[in-house]
């Protein structure tokens, strides 16, 4: 009853699979996550816009799906690739995972050699790929080879949600939504902030009109170098109000501070990334989902501290410009899915700006 499906990479790797979601053909940047839990949170993370998500963990969808596990209002990856997709109801809700994917119109496949795909991406780097329940090998490969790459595409506006106000009390934080996960907003509120969610196209004047205590830049999809509006916005406000960024927000803050961003070979996506804090040497197990990283010139940059470093590859995981009261982390303190080691960052942030 499941239709056969096809997974291809632009370099010619072809893998068989079977359809467990909607029918169709999708292309995008092929990425993998090694996170072993939280499949529904993952596919509703807007940072996956423009990508095809392969789960390295083999058993996905074991505990059903339901409304309590969404990080946004829709599914973002172009397609989802799994080794075994479940379809029983479970702790997350009464709907089977395959059914949920189908109802959300997601092109999803399982019975695919996801380890091979993962290892291939690891060895050959991020590249375009496609998934189809309709096309033959050659057709799909041709389509993939003509699909746009992620580099240079400004996806923040597309991933952004509507304006909204959250929380009722506390310091006002204007949160620039470049594709913000719902739990970032809710963590800020829990930490005691009032959050005004605004699109990336907002002007500095509009931000200041909220009389905010801080600016927050969210996570989001794609290439930080291509996000047009946010870097000027940050530059304008830096020094006026504190700035805090997560993931893409971290990269955009860095660019606003004239640092550069580079594409990683195949990105960091998982829930087990160790990050060392500079100030006390302690290690946090963090959740990551990014394809680009911040780089500092050799010898560093005056006024900017590297506050956190990846123990996997030494890449920059956090920066601070103390004079400007700006901080950011590359990873996801809100987790979902993944360990909560860094959840304290929200409370820290709200406490700092409250003072």
């Amino acid at each position, binding site marked *: 009853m499941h239709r056969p499906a096809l997974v291809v990479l632009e370099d010619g790797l072809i*893998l*068989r699979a079977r359809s467990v979601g909607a029918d169709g053909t999708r292309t995008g940047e092929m990425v*993998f996550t*090694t*996170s*072993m*839990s*939280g499949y529904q*949170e993952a596919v509703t993370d807007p940072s996956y816009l423009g990508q095809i998500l392969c789960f*390295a*963990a*083999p*058993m996905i969808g*074991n*505990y059903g799906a339901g409304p309590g*596990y969404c990080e946004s209002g829709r599914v973002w990856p172009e397609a989802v690739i799994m*080794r*075994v997709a*479940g379809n*029983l109801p*479970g*702790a*997350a809700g009464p709907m089977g995972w395959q059914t949920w994917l189908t109802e959300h119109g997601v092109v999803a496949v399982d019975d695919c*050699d*996801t*380890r*091979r795909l*993962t*290892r291939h991406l*690891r*060895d050959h780097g991020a590249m375009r790929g496609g998934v189809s329940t309709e096309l033959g090998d050659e057709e799909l490969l041709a389509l993939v080879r003509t699909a746009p790459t992620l580099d240079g595409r400004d996806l923040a506006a597309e991933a952004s949600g509507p304006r909204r106000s959250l929380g009722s009390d506390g310091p006002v934080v204007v949160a620039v939504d470049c594709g913000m996960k719902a739990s970032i907003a809710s963590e800020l509120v829990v930490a005691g902030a009032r959050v005004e969610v605004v699109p990336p196209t907002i002007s500095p004047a509009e931000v200041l009109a909220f009389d905010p205590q801080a600016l927050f830049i969210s996570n989001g999809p794609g290439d930080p170098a291509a996000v047009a509006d946010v870097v000027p916005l940050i530059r304008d406000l830096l020094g006026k109000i504190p700035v805090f960024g997560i993931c893409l927000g971290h990269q955009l803050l860095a660019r606003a501070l004239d640092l550069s961003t580079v594409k990683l070979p195949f990105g960091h996506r*998982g*829930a*087990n*990334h*160790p990050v*060392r804090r500079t100030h006390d*040497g*302690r*290690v946090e*197990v963090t959740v990551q989902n990014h394809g680009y990283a911040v780089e500092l010139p050799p010898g560093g940059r005056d006024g900017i501290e590297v506050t956190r470093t990846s*123990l*996997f590859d030494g890449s920059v995981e956090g920066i601070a410009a103390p004079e400007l009261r700006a901080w950011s982390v590359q990873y996801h303190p809100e*987790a*979902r*899915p*993944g*360990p*909560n080691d860094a959840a304290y960052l929200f409370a820290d942030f709200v406490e700092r700006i409250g003072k």
Partner: protein
Amino acid sequence: MPARTDIRTILVLGSGPIVIGQAGEFDYSGTQACHALREDGFRVVLVNSNPATIMTDPGVADRTYIESLDLETVSAIIAKERPDALLPTLGGQTALNLAVELFEAGVLDQYGVELIGADVDVIRRAEDREVFRACMHEAGIPVLDGRIVSSLAEATTAAEALGFPLILRPAFTMGGEGGGSAATPEELARMAERAITASPIGQVLVERSIAGWGEFEFEVVRDRNDNAIIVCSIENIDPMGVHTGDSVTVAPAMTLTDTELQRMRDVAIAVVRAVGVETGGANVQFALERSTGELVVIEMNPRVSRSSALASKATGFPIAKIAARLAIGYTLDELPNDVTGVTPASFEPALDYVALKMPRFAFEKVPAVVPVLSTYMQSVGEVLTLGRSFGEAFGKALRARELDVPAEVPDSLSAALACLATPRPDRYDVMLWACDAGATAGELASASRVDPWFCDQIVQFAEARRAVRRNLVELTADDVRSAHRAGLTDRDIAAATETTEVEVIAQRHRLEVRPSVHAVDTCAGEFAAASPYFYTAYETETEAPSPSGKVIVVLGSGPNRIGQGVEFDYCCVQAVQAARDLGYEAVMINCNPETVSTDQGVSDRLYLEPVTLETVIEVAAIERPVGVITQLGGQTPLRLAEAIAQAGIPLIGTPPHAIDLAEDRGRFGALLHGLGLRSPEWRVAPSATEVGAATEAIGFPVLIRPSYVLGGRAMAICHSAADVDEYLTRERPQGAVFVDRFLERAVEVDVDALCDGQSTWIAGIMEHVEAAGIHSGDSACVLPAQSLGPATIDAIGAQVGAIARAVGVVGLVNVQFAVVNEAIFVIEANPRASRTVPFVSKATGVPLVRHAVRLMLGESIADLDLPEPRPGGYVAVKEAVLPFSRFPSTDPVLGPEMRATGEVMAIRGSFAQAFAAAQRAAGQRLPRSGSVFVSARDADKPDAVSIAGALGRAGFRLLATEGTGRALGAAGLQVEVVRRVSEGADNVVDRIAAGGVDLVINTPGGRSAHDDGAQIRRAALRYGVPCATTIEAARASVQAILSGGGSPARPLAIQDVHRAVSTSR
């Protein structure tokens, strides 16, 4: 912070003999830790009474004491070796409890020994159920409502408050020993006392039963910088109520949402912080009520455990090694992840496969025990399998168990579902049977309370099995591949298609369906890892390694079971090391996580797979070995030898036809005859009905056993036709029955030897303490033999040589004899490494397996430069450790069927002293004074008189049952006759219970005397009174008592013994 420089010598405690709940996993963790500590330049002093371990090999620690793990002995070792620190977290509950004792006795303070890894406060907070609860309350961590009790009255009050059913959980025990569930006040009364005695501090936690809730475990590692990681989450498929050691468990957790998982992760780390485990590994157990989300902490263990060994092997993260290095000052981020080489140990492993552990039970070995699982552990072993789907791991595990007795299946679906309501050892087999009978996942789940997701997986497995119930030749490549991807093994396909494994393998090869090989890389493929650790699956790309040199494959022994335990793992690991030393690449195949052989650092490559023909053939296709070794893993690999050879794979060591010659009774009998050697007269009765004729021909007493079973199962000694009838009715043997003349009062002798096909070198001639008739694995034995004259010794040696040569042994051989006066009878010859190889190796200092490997590789005995076997003035005793305390309803008598789970060893200057020390190590504290109760069957009475006389002269008070009392009295001994149980109050059992008996000598008579004697023996067991159940053991015990009762003074390091032995040559 690098390693500490203020400590130099570290004392490591092992876990002692293998018992249910504490097996080879502590050899694995301890060995790993010793290596890690020595690499960092520390001097390691090791104490472990278990000779069947790798850790007690002389090269693992600087100083190794194969000595009793008790306060006095270890105190003496501390006084002698003056360690700076004691690392107590690697030797299971035994080491932890002993560390507390040493602390409380002031020994650690006296000698300035620092506890590292876990201090006494931490141990108390974790192990004392009361302190733990208080600590959890304080930290705001949820635990179940419960009461701490230390008397039946308190337990009854607790029951009134909490309501039935209740769970009893003794403090400071392991494997749930002494605990259980009580549904009624009567059950509570029965169990409370037992639970209280089981706890070394007499403390029991009484809790409301939450049987049926989900059970989960988290393995936490923390360093002194307060960095904490979760190595692995483990889900118990069997819900709460079945001990985790008896549950089928899976990693990572399968059915938890991320929210639930992270909540547990946070709480697990909070528990470790609250208890204060500063460095090292800990295991935290949770119960989760799925419908309400209620989460409670069940317990935490501040040490490496069975679960941490499992987690290490499920993830490739070596917890014990890391824990040891954290204890000496490193932090996680300073330690490398050896698998990836490029990342640090401060991360959480990501798995892209499913790891599944399945327990191996041995209820058939303990008759009279109802096979129902509970909160105390009863399994004797386990398997771990990996697959790219749940089904793959599950199916492999079912196979890897190697059941000797097929699971019993019910006769109707309703019976099956009813049977699932009670957790039994064969519940998954019953579920699969029920699936074929039409059960749905929902029905299975509501009957068994196993989560519906797992039930659905089981239904899918059953469907896959049904899908291949066709003609083998009709199956397409896709069919066969799908079957494997669903978890079926070739043997399953063979069963479904009514063919053989060999035929299925051939057909699969014709269809070009071959498994892929995958590395356990700790990172789900994210980094290019140089992992030596593999499993197979049926994916589209293989990561099969390319061997760079000449490869030797060593086959492991599969799950521990009674009769096949870690002693074989010792042999395998030795072989791997020998092969590597000789310049070969050594490849290990095994599926037993409780072993050193499945430590990924031991061999050049490890395949964690069931030890089956399928695995061997597929691994051989990749590794192209120059030799496969089948003689070191017990019967498991030996049974495969023939088929491996037939498959054209080079086998080294004793060839299959020689194995058959030794194992086939008829052929072996003829061989002995040809050599002019005697064996007990025997007959084969083609069926049960012809047993009568056979016994008549031989004459009573006889030893009867069915032909189709291994390991001495269903063996019985029959003294009369009535006994035979009773045996036949009880056992209903199918097929042929062997009838042997039973040699009474024969001295049993066990010989291990090396042979190159021509010459033989005798490694050790061991004399059993108990007479023939008690299985060699259950009797104590001594090296060198004590009662045999030089002529007999020489004759035995010559006979072994003749047999080994005639059989064609290349490598190790074990021959068992019974000696009656001067007459020598051959009982059996095993053309493989025996259970006693580690014991002999350690007693003599000659590494037998290493020599055997060289023989298998073509060298001759003359090439090996072997010493004259003379144990230089020392006497070594091995004593068996039996699992009776786990099965309180069983009669703790010995017989021809093996029941021991483990063994201990002691070396001293004389037999009496060594025997005493071995008894002590086995937990039998022989008294130095007090009262002895004697009750001997008629045949033993003359001996009983002399034994009792000796004790009387040594100042013991003598108590006896009437008949024995009369015999003792008649010999002029002062004796008090005590009532039998049937004779009313103040009877012998009451006396034992009241502490009025310090030693029991009770030898079972015929079946009639059984009941009374059984009650006495059970009482002795229950109240921890040493009990000799054979007259020979009684005699040895008396000698031991008279020699000073095994005083721990002057413990001997094995390195010193070996030096003395080799210089005396």
